[in-house]
Protein backbone atom coordinates (compact mmCIF):
# COMPACT_ATOMS: atom_id res chain seq x y z
CA UNK A 1 0.00 0.00 0.00
CA UNK A 2 2.78 2.41 0.88
CA UNK A 3 4.41 1.82 -2.49
CA UNK A 4 1.15 2.78 -4.19
CA UNK A 5 1.13 6.03 -2.28
CA UNK A 6 4.75 6.62 -3.15
CA UNK A 7 3.88 6.21 -6.81
CA UNK A 8 1.20 8.80 -6.36
CA UNK A 9 3.66 11.36 -5.08
CA UNK A 10 6.72 10.51 -7.08
CA UNK A 11 6.32 13.71 -8.95
CA UNK A 12 7.30 15.24 -5.64
CA UNK A 13 9.91 12.78 -4.59
CA UNK A 14 11.98 10.65 -6.88
CA UNK A 15 14.69 9.75 -4.45
CA UNK A 16 14.16 6.56 -2.49
CA UNK A 17 16.98 7.39 -0.10
CA UNK A 18 14.72 10.14 1.10
CA UNK A 19 11.98 7.62 1.90
CA UNK A 20 14.50 5.49 3.76
CA UNK A 21 15.63 8.48 5.74
CA UNK A 22 12.10 9.58 6.59
CA UNK A 23 11.22 6.07 7.70
CA UNK A 24 14.24 6.05 9.99
CA UNK A 25 13.16 9.45 11.24
CA UNK A 26 9.61 8.22 12.00
CA UNK A 27 10.99 5.25 13.83
CA UNK A 28 13.39 7.43 15.81
CA UNK A 29 10.46 9.68 16.65
CA UNK A 30 8.69 6.83 18.45
CA UNK A 31 11.85 6.29 20.49
CA UNK A 32 12.49 9.93 21.34
CA UNK A 33 8.89 10.76 22.24
CA UNK A 34 6.34 8.68 24.04
CA UNK A 35 4.33 7.93 20.91
CA UNK A 36 3.34 4.63 19.31
CA UNK A 37 3.16 5.59 15.64
CA UNK A 38 4.39 8.39 13.38
CA UNK A 39 3.76 9.32 9.79
CA UNK A 40 5.13 11.98 7.45
CA UNK A 41 2.52 13.45 5.14
CA UNK A 42 3.59 15.34 2.08
CA UNK A 43 1.42 17.75 0.15
CA UNK A 44 1.07 17.38 -3.61
CA UNK A 45 0.62 20.16 -6.11
CA UNK A 46 -3.13 19.99 -5.68
CA UNK A 47 -2.80 20.57 -1.93
CA UNK A 48 -3.70 16.96 -0.99
CA UNK A 49 -1.75 15.16 1.71
CA UNK A 50 -0.11 11.80 1.07
CA UNK A 51 1.74 9.65 3.55
CA UNK A 52 5.27 9.01 2.28
CA UNK A 53 6.82 7.42 5.33
CA UNK A 54 5.60 5.87 8.56
CA UNK A 55 7.05 4.22 11.63
CA UNK A 56 5.33 0.97 10.64
CA UNK A 57 3.23 -0.11 7.75
CA UNK A 58 0.26 -1.70 9.41
CA UNK A 59 -2.76 -1.18 7.21
CA UNK A 60 -4.76 0.28 10.06
CA UNK A 61 -2.16 2.99 10.56
CA UNK A 62 -1.77 3.75 6.88
CA UNK A 63 -5.53 4.11 6.56
CA UNK A 64 -5.46 6.74 9.26
CA UNK A 65 -3.12 8.74 7.14
CA UNK A 66 -4.85 8.14 3.87
CA UNK A 67 -8.30 9.22 5.04
CA UNK A 68 -6.77 12.60 5.81
CA UNK A 69 -7.20 13.49 2.18
CA UNK A 70 -10.50 14.87 3.31
CA UNK A 71 -10.63 15.27 7.07
CA UNK A 72 -8.37 15.07 10.06
CA UNK A 73 -6.00 17.14 12.17
CA UNK A 74 -3.35 17.05 9.41
CA UNK A 75 -5.69 18.70 6.92
CA UNK A 76 -6.36 21.49 9.39
CA UNK A 77 -2.72 21.86 10.32
CA UNK A 78 -1.70 22.03 6.70
CA UNK A 79 -4.39 24.61 6.00
CA UNK A 80 -3.29 27.13 8.63
CA UNK A 81 0.30 26.02 9.28
CA UNK A 82 -0.16 25.72 13.05
CA UNK A 83 0.46 22.66 15.19
CA UNK A 84 -2.36 20.77 16.88
CA UNK A 85 -1.01 18.97 19.92
CA UNK A 86 -2.61 16.70 22.52
CA UNK A 87 -5.80 15.98 20.65
CA UNK A 88 -7.70 13.61 22.91
CA UNK A 89 -9.48 11.26 20.53
CA UNK A 90 -12.25 10.65 23.07
CA UNK A 91 -12.98 14.33 23.43
CA UNK A 92 -15.80 15.35 21.09
CA UNK A 93 -14.85 19.04 21.40
CA UNK A 94 -11.34 18.39 20.12
CA UNK A 95 -12.41 16.07 17.31
CA UNK A 96 -15.47 17.98 16.11
CA UNK A 97 -13.88 18.75 12.75
CA UNK A 98 -12.98 15.14 12.04
CA UNK A 99 -15.33 12.64 13.76
CA UNK A 100 -14.72 9.88 11.21
CA UNK A 101 -10.98 10.12 11.62
CA UNK A 102 -11.26 10.11 15.41
CA UNK A 103 -13.39 7.02 15.44
CA UNK A 104 -11.01 5.11 13.22
CA UNK A 105 -8.03 6.18 15.28
CA UNK A 106 -9.72 4.95 18.46
CA UNK A 107 -10.47 1.66 16.74
CA UNK A 108 -6.81 1.38 15.84
CA UNK A 109 -6.03 1.58 19.56
CA UNK A 110 -4.89 5.20 19.81
CA UNK A 111 -5.92 7.62 22.54
CA UNK A 112 -4.15 10.81 21.49
CA UNK A 113 -2.82 12.39 18.32
CA UNK A 114 -0.63 15.37 17.38
CA UNK A 115 -0.22 17.13 14.03
CA UNK A 116 2.80 19.36 13.39
CA UNK A 117 3.34 21.49 10.30
CA UNK A 118 6.45 20.69 8.28
CA UNK A 119 7.28 24.27 7.57
CA UNK A 120 10.30 26.36 6.72
CA UNK A 121 9.68 30.08 6.90
CA UNK A 122 6.32 30.63 5.21
CA UNK A 123 6.30 27.41 3.24
CA UNK A 124 4.50 24.30 4.51
CA UNK A 125 5.53 21.16 2.65
CA UNK A 126 3.57 18.64 4.71
CA UNK A 127 2.49 17.53 8.14
CA UNK A 128 3.97 15.16 10.69
CA UNK A 129 1.32 13.09 12.47
CA UNK A 130 1.94 11.30 15.77
CA UNK A 131 -0.25 8.85 17.67
CA UNK A 132 -0.07 7.70 21.27
CA UNK A 133 -1.88 4.89 23.03
CA UNK A 134 -1.91 6.64 26.40
CA UNK A 135 -3.87 9.80 27.13
CA UNK A 136 -0.75 11.72 28.09
CA UNK A 137 -0.20 15.27 26.83
CA UNK A 138 3.19 16.47 25.61
CA UNK A 139 5.48 18.29 28.00
CA UNK A 140 7.08 21.53 26.89
CA UNK A 141 10.23 19.57 26.02
CA UNK A 142 8.30 16.92 24.09
CA UNK A 143 6.71 19.67 22.07
CA UNK A 144 10.08 21.20 21.14
CA UNK A 145 11.50 17.82 20.21
CA UNK A 146 8.46 17.06 18.04
CA UNK A 147 8.82 20.42 16.29
CA UNK A 148 12.52 19.80 15.75
CA UNK A 149 11.78 16.40 14.21
CA UNK A 150 9.19 17.99 11.93
CA UNK A 151 11.90 20.50 10.94
CA UNK A 152 14.26 17.67 10.13
CA UNK A 153 11.62 16.05 7.90
CA UNK A 154 11.03 19.41 6.21
CA UNK A 155 14.71 19.93 5.49
CA UNK A 156 15.04 16.35 4.28
CA UNK A 157 12.36 17.04 1.70
CA UNK A 158 13.57 20.49 0.74
CA UNK A 159 17.18 19.43 0.39
CA UNK A 160 16.14 17.09 -2.38
CA UNK A 161 14.15 19.64 -4.26
CA UNK A 162 15.88 22.12 -6.44
CA UNK A 163 13.93 25.23 -5.72
CA UNK A 164 14.34 28.88 -6.38
CA UNK A 165 13.28 29.33 -2.77
CA UNK A 166 16.11 27.13 -1.55
CA UNK A 167 18.60 29.39 -3.24
CA UNK A 168 16.88 32.43 -1.83
CA UNK A 169 17.19 31.06 1.67
CA UNK A 170 20.84 30.28 1.13
CA UNK A 171 21.34 33.81 -0.17
CA UNK A 172 19.69 35.24 2.93
CA UNK A 173 21.89 33.19 5.20
CA UNK A 174 24.99 34.28 3.31
CA UNK A 175 23.81 37.87 3.39
CA UNK A 176 23.28 37.66 7.15
CA UNK A 177 26.84 36.44 7.65
CA UNK A 178 28.33 38.76 5.05
CA UNK A 179 26.72 41.79 6.66
CA UNK A 180 28.46 40.88 9.88
CA UNK A 181 31.76 40.18 8.14
CA UNK A 182 31.76 43.51 6.35
CA UNK A 183 31.29 45.35 9.65
CA UNK A 184 34.36 43.61 11.07
CA UNK A 185 36.37 44.50 7.97
CA UNK A 186 35.29 48.13 8.20
CA UNK A 187 36.30 48.20 11.88
CA UNK A 188 39.75 46.99 10.86
CA UNK A 189 40.08 49.55 8.08
CA UNK A 190 39.10 52.47 10.32
CA UNK A 191 41.23 51.22 13.22
CA UNK A 192 44.24 51.15 10.94
CA UNK A 193 43.58 54.61 9.47
CA UNK A 194 43.00 56.08 12.90
CA UNK A 195 45.59 53.93 14.64
CA UNK A 196 43.06 53.03 17.31
CA UNK A 197 41.54 49.84 18.63
CA UNK A 198 38.68 48.08 16.85
CA UNK A 199 36.19 48.96 19.59
CA UNK A 200 36.83 52.64 19.06
CA UNK A 201 36.51 52.13 15.32
CA UNK A 202 33.14 50.50 15.84
CA UNK A 203 32.00 53.41 17.97
CA UNK A 204 32.94 55.84 15.18
CA UNK A 205 31.19 53.68 12.63
CA UNK A 206 28.04 53.50 14.69
CA UNK A 207 27.92 57.22 15.42
CA UNK A 208 28.39 58.09 11.77
CA UNK A 209 25.70 55.60 10.76
CA UNK A 210 23.25 57.10 13.24
CA UNK A 211 24.07 60.70 12.43
CA UNK A 212 23.59 60.06 8.72
CA UNK A 213 20.68 57.65 9.13
CA UNK A 214 22.58 54.92 7.34
CA UNK A 215 22.42 51.25 8.20
CA UNK A 216 25.59 50.01 9.84
CA UNK A 217 25.99 47.34 7.19
CA UNK A 218 25.50 49.80 4.36
CA UNK A 219 28.01 52.24 5.81
CA UNK A 220 30.47 49.41 6.35
CA UNK A 221 30.09 48.34 2.75
CA UNK A 222 30.87 51.89 1.65
CA UNK A 223 33.97 51.95 3.82
CA UNK A 224 35.13 48.60 2.48
CA UNK A 225 34.46 49.65 -1.11
CA UNK A 226 36.41 52.87 -0.57
CA UNK A 227 33.34 54.95 -1.38
CA UNK A 228 33.67 56.77 1.90
CA UNK A 229 37.01 58.11 2.96
CA UNK A 230 37.96 57.34 6.54
CA UNK A 231 38.54 61.07 7.06
CA UNK A 232 34.82 61.66 6.35
CA UNK A 233 33.96 59.69 9.44
CA UNK A 234 34.58 61.46 12.68
CA UNK A 235 37.09 59.83 14.95
CA UNK A 236 35.29 59.43 18.31
Amino acid at each position, binding site marked *: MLSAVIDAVDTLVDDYDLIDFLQTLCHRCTELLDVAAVGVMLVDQGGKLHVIAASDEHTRLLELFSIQHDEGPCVETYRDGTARLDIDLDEPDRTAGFPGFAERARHAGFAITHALPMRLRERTVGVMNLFGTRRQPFTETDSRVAHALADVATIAIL*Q*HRTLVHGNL*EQAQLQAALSSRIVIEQAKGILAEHWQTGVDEAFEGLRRHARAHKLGLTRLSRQVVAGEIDSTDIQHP
Partner: protein
Amino acid sequence: MASRGDLAAVLGDLRSSASAAGLIGADAAACARALAVDGVAVSVVVGDGLCELVWSTPGASRHLEDLQFTLGEGPGPEAAATCGVVLEPDLTRVRDGRWPALLPEAVALGVGAVFCFPLLLGGACIGTLTLQRAAPGPPADAAVADAWMVAGALTAVLVENAGRWPASVEEKESVLYRAVVHQAAGMISVQARVTLAQALVRLRAYAFRHGRSVAEVAEDVVTRRVHFRIDQDERGASDRWRD
Protein backbone atom coordinates in the same frame (compact mmCIF):
# COMPACT_ATOMS: atom_id res chain seq x y z
CA MET B 1 27.39 5.34 24.30
CA ALA B 2 24.93 8.17 24.01
CA SER B 3 21.43 7.72 25.31
CA ARG B 4 18.29 8.50 23.40
CA GLY B 5 17.40 11.29 25.75
CA ASP B 6 20.58 13.11 24.70
CA LEU B 7 19.50 13.38 21.08
CA ALA B 8 16.01 14.51 22.09
CA ALA B 9 17.54 17.17 24.33
CA VAL B 10 19.79 18.41 21.52
CA LEU B 11 16.96 18.57 19.01
CA GLY B 12 14.74 20.38 21.50
CA ASP B 13 17.56 22.75 22.39
CA LEU B 14 18.22 23.52 18.72
CA ARG B 15 14.57 24.16 18.11
CA SER B 16 14.38 26.74 20.89
CA SER B 17 17.69 28.39 20.04
CA ALA B 18 16.20 31.36 18.25
CA SER B 19 18.95 33.37 19.82
CA ALA B 20 19.70 36.98 19.10
CA ALA B 21 23.31 36.37 20.03
CA GLY B 22 24.13 34.01 17.23
CA LEU B 23 22.87 31.77 14.53
CA ILE B 24 22.82 28.71 16.76
CA GLY B 25 22.25 29.01 20.49
CA ALA B 26 22.31 25.34 21.49
CA ASP B 27 25.03 23.60 23.51
CA ALA B 28 27.66 22.17 21.16
CA ALA B 29 29.16 19.90 23.81
CA ALA B 30 25.79 18.26 24.45
CA CYS B 31 25.44 17.72 20.71
CA ALA B 32 28.86 16.02 20.59
CA ARG B 33 27.86 13.72 23.46
CA ALA B 34 24.57 12.82 21.79
CA LEU B 35 26.40 11.88 18.59
CA ALA B 36 29.06 9.94 20.51
CA VAL B 37 31.98 12.05 19.26
CA ASP B 38 34.51 14.32 20.96
CA GLY B 39 33.60 17.51 19.16
CA VAL B 40 31.31 19.18 16.63
CA ALA B 41 31.58 22.29 14.45
CA VAL B 42 29.25 24.03 12.02
CA SER B 43 30.53 26.28 9.27
CA VAL B 44 28.40 28.20 6.78
CA VAL B 45 29.44 28.71 3.18
CA VAL B 46 29.74 32.46 2.55
CA GLY B 47 30.96 32.30 -1.01
CA ASP B 48 34.32 32.28 -2.79
CA GLY B 49 34.97 28.84 -1.32
CA LEU B 50 35.13 30.41 2.14
CA CYS B 51 33.32 28.97 5.13
CA GLU B 52 32.53 30.93 8.26
CA LEU B 53 32.59 29.04 11.55
CA VAL B 54 29.34 29.69 13.41
CA TRP B 55 29.16 27.02 16.11
CA SER B 56 31.66 24.68 17.71
CA THR B 57 32.89 22.87 20.77
CA PRO B 58 36.14 24.40 22.04
CA GLY B 59 39.44 22.65 21.40
CA ALA B 60 40.14 20.24 18.58
CA SER B 61 36.95 20.86 16.58
CA ARG B 62 37.50 24.58 16.53
CA HIS B 63 41.17 24.16 15.67
CA LEU B 64 40.30 21.76 12.89
CA GLU B 65 37.95 24.34 11.37
CA ASP B 66 40.66 26.99 11.68
CA LEU B 67 43.15 24.70 9.97
CA GLN B 68 40.78 24.06 7.10
CA PHE B 69 40.13 27.79 6.83
CA THR B 70 43.89 28.49 6.79
CA LEU B 71 44.77 25.76 4.32
CA GLY B 72 41.65 25.73 2.18
CA GLU B 73 41.49 21.94 2.18
CA GLY B 74 39.99 19.15 4.26
CA PRO B 75 36.74 17.27 4.77
CA GLY B 76 34.74 20.48 5.29
CA PRO B 77 35.71 22.22 2.04
CA GLU B 78 35.29 18.89 0.27
CA ALA B 79 31.80 18.25 1.65
CA ALA B 80 30.83 21.84 0.82
CA ALA B 81 32.14 21.57 -2.75
CA THR B 82 30.63 18.17 -3.52
CA CYS B 83 27.42 18.42 -1.43
CA GLY B 84 28.32 14.91 -0.23
CA VAL B 85 29.14 13.32 3.10
CA VAL B 86 32.84 12.77 3.87
CA LEU B 87 33.58 9.94 6.31
CA GLU B 88 37.21 9.41 7.30
CA PRO B 89 37.28 6.83 10.10
CA ASP B 90 41.07 6.85 10.40
CA LEU B 91 43.10 9.93 9.53
CA THR B 92 46.34 7.95 9.68
CA ARG B 93 45.10 5.82 6.80
CA VAL B 94 43.87 8.42 4.35
CA ARG B 95 45.12 7.77 0.82
CA ASP B 96 48.26 9.57 -0.29
CA GLY B 97 47.87 13.00 -1.76
CA ARG B 98 44.58 13.77 -0.10
CA TRP B 99 44.74 16.94 2.03
CA PRO B 100 48.57 16.87 2.16
CA ALA B 101 48.92 20.06 4.20
CA LEU B 102 46.02 19.44 6.54
CA LEU B 103 46.49 15.80 7.52
CA PRO B 104 49.69 16.02 9.58
CA GLU B 105 48.30 19.05 11.40
CA ALA B 106 44.97 17.35 12.11
CA VAL B 107 46.69 14.23 13.40
CA ALA B 108 48.94 16.41 15.55
CA LEU B 109 45.79 17.96 17.02
CA GLY B 110 44.81 14.49 18.15
CA VAL B 111 41.98 14.01 15.68
CA GLY B 112 41.59 10.34 14.77
CA ALA B 113 38.33 10.25 12.82
CA VAL B 114 36.33 12.93 10.99
CA PHE B 115 32.76 12.72 9.73
CA CYS B 116 31.53 15.68 7.75
CA PHE B 117 27.88 16.14 6.73
CA PRO B 118 26.76 18.79 4.25
CA LEU B 119 23.84 21.01 5.29
CA LEU B 120 21.74 20.70 2.17
CA LEU B 121 18.88 22.89 1.08
CA GLY B 122 17.26 23.22 -2.31
CA GLY B 123 20.04 21.31 -4.03
CA ALA B 124 22.79 23.51 -2.58
CA CYS B 125 25.18 23.07 0.31
CA ILE B 126 24.71 25.93 2.78
CA GLY B 127 27.29 24.68 5.26
CA THR B 128 28.83 21.69 6.99
CA LEU B 129 28.47 19.78 10.25
CA THR B 130 31.83 18.25 11.15
CA LEU B 131 32.15 15.61 13.85
CA GLN B 132 35.54 14.50 15.12
CA ARG B 133 36.85 12.12 17.70
CA ALA B 134 40.26 11.07 18.92
CA ALA B 135 39.64 7.34 18.63
CA PRO B 136 39.68 6.09 15.04
CA GLY B 137 36.90 3.84 13.79
CA PRO B 138 33.80 4.00 11.63
CA PRO B 139 30.64 5.63 12.92
CA ALA B 140 27.77 3.33 13.90
CA ASP B 141 24.90 3.25 11.38
CA ALA B 142 22.57 4.70 13.99
CA ALA B 143 25.04 7.51 14.66
CA VAL B 144 25.09 8.41 10.96
CA ALA B 145 21.29 8.58 10.88
CA ASP B 146 21.30 10.72 14.03
CA ALA B 147 23.96 13.00 12.56
CA TRP B 148 21.79 13.54 9.48
CA MET B 149 18.91 14.43 11.78
CA VAL B 150 21.02 16.96 13.63
CA ALA B 151 22.23 18.31 10.26
CA GLY B 152 18.60 18.78 9.20
CA ALA B 153 17.67 20.50 12.46
CA LEU B 154 20.73 22.77 12.15
CA THR B 155 19.82 23.70 8.60
CA ALA B 156 16.31 24.64 9.72
CA VAL B 157 17.65 26.74 12.61
CA LEU B 158 20.20 28.52 10.41
CA VAL B 159 17.65 29.39 7.77
CA GLU B 160 15.00 30.46 10.29
CA ASN B 161 17.44 32.57 12.30
CA ALA B 162 19.11 34.14 9.27
CA GLY B 163 15.88 36.00 8.52
CA ARG B 164 15.83 37.59 11.97
CA TRP B 165 19.54 38.00 12.31
CA PRO B 166 20.26 41.36 10.72
CA ALA B 167 18.54 42.92 13.74
CA SER B 168 21.53 41.92 15.85
CA VAL B 169 23.96 43.80 13.64
CA GLU B 170 23.94 46.82 15.94
CA GLU B 171 25.45 44.86 18.78
CA LYS B 172 29.06 45.56 19.56
CA GLU B 173 29.96 42.01 20.40
CA SER B 174 30.22 40.12 17.18
CA VAL B 175 28.45 36.83 16.74
CA LEU B 176 31.21 35.60 14.46
CA TYR B 177 33.79 33.19 15.80
CA ARG B 178 36.34 34.72 13.48
CA ALA B 179 35.43 38.37 13.89
CA VAL B 180 39.08 39.13 14.60
CA VAL B 181 40.13 37.58 11.29
CA HIS B 182 37.93 39.98 9.35
CA GLN B 183 39.08 42.93 11.46
CA ALA B 184 42.69 41.96 10.73
CA ALA B 185 41.91 41.64 7.02
CA GLY B 186 40.55 45.19 7.10
CA MET B 187 43.72 46.45 8.76
CA ILE B 188 46.02 44.53 6.43
CA SER B 189 44.18 45.89 3.39
CA VAL B 190 45.12 49.39 4.56
CA GLN B 191 48.67 48.46 5.57
CA ALA B 192 49.57 46.63 2.40
CA ARG B 193 47.23 48.58 0.08
CA VAL B 194 45.55 45.48 -1.24
CA THR B 195 41.96 44.34 -1.57
CA LEU B 196 40.26 42.58 1.32
CA ALA B 197 40.39 39.28 -0.53
CA GLN B 198 44.14 39.69 -1.06
CA ALA B 199 44.54 40.74 2.57
CA LEU B 200 42.89 37.52 3.69
CA VAL B 201 45.14 35.47 1.40
CA ARG B 202 48.19 37.17 2.91
CA LEU B 203 46.96 36.51 6.41
CA ARG B 204 46.40 32.83 5.63
CA ALA B 205 49.77 32.51 3.90
CA TYR B 206 51.53 34.13 6.86
CA ALA B 207 49.77 31.78 9.30
CA PHE B 208 50.69 28.76 7.22
CA ARG B 209 54.33 29.77 6.88
CA HIS B 210 54.62 30.28 10.61
CA GLY B 211 52.70 27.17 11.55
CA ARG B 212 50.09 29.19 13.40
CA SER B 213 46.33 29.48 13.16
CA VAL B 214 44.76 32.33 11.24
CA ALA B 215 42.89 33.40 14.36
CA GLU B 216 46.12 33.70 16.37
CA VAL B 217 47.88 35.76 13.73
CA ALA B 218 44.79 37.93 13.31
CA GLU B 219 44.84 38.57 17.05
CA ASP B 220 48.46 39.72 16.71
CA VAL B 221 47.55 42.02 13.83
CA VAL B 222 44.69 43.63 15.72
CA THR B 223 46.86 44.11 18.81
CA ARG B 224 49.64 45.42 16.52
CA ARG B 225 52.23 42.80 17.27
CA VAL B 226 52.36 41.84 13.57
CA HIS B 227 51.88 44.16 10.63
CA PHE B 228 51.88 43.87 6.87
CA ARG B 229 52.97 47.40 6.07
CA ILE B 230 55.06 47.87 2.98
CA ASP B 231 58.61 48.38 4.20
CA GLN B 232 59.47 52.08 4.27
CA ASP B 233 62.80 51.47 2.52
CA GLU B 234 61.25 49.44 -0.22
CA ARG B 235 58.15 51.41 -1.04
CA GLY B 236 56.85 50.15 -4.34
CA ALA B 237 58.01 46.59 -3.79
CA SER B 238 54.37 45.84 -3.14
CA ASP B 239 54.76 42.18 -2.43
CA ARG B 240 57.11 42.65 0.48
CA TRP B 241 55.99 43.03 4.00
CA ARG B 242 57.64 42.69 7.33
CA ASP B 243 57.01 39.64 9.43
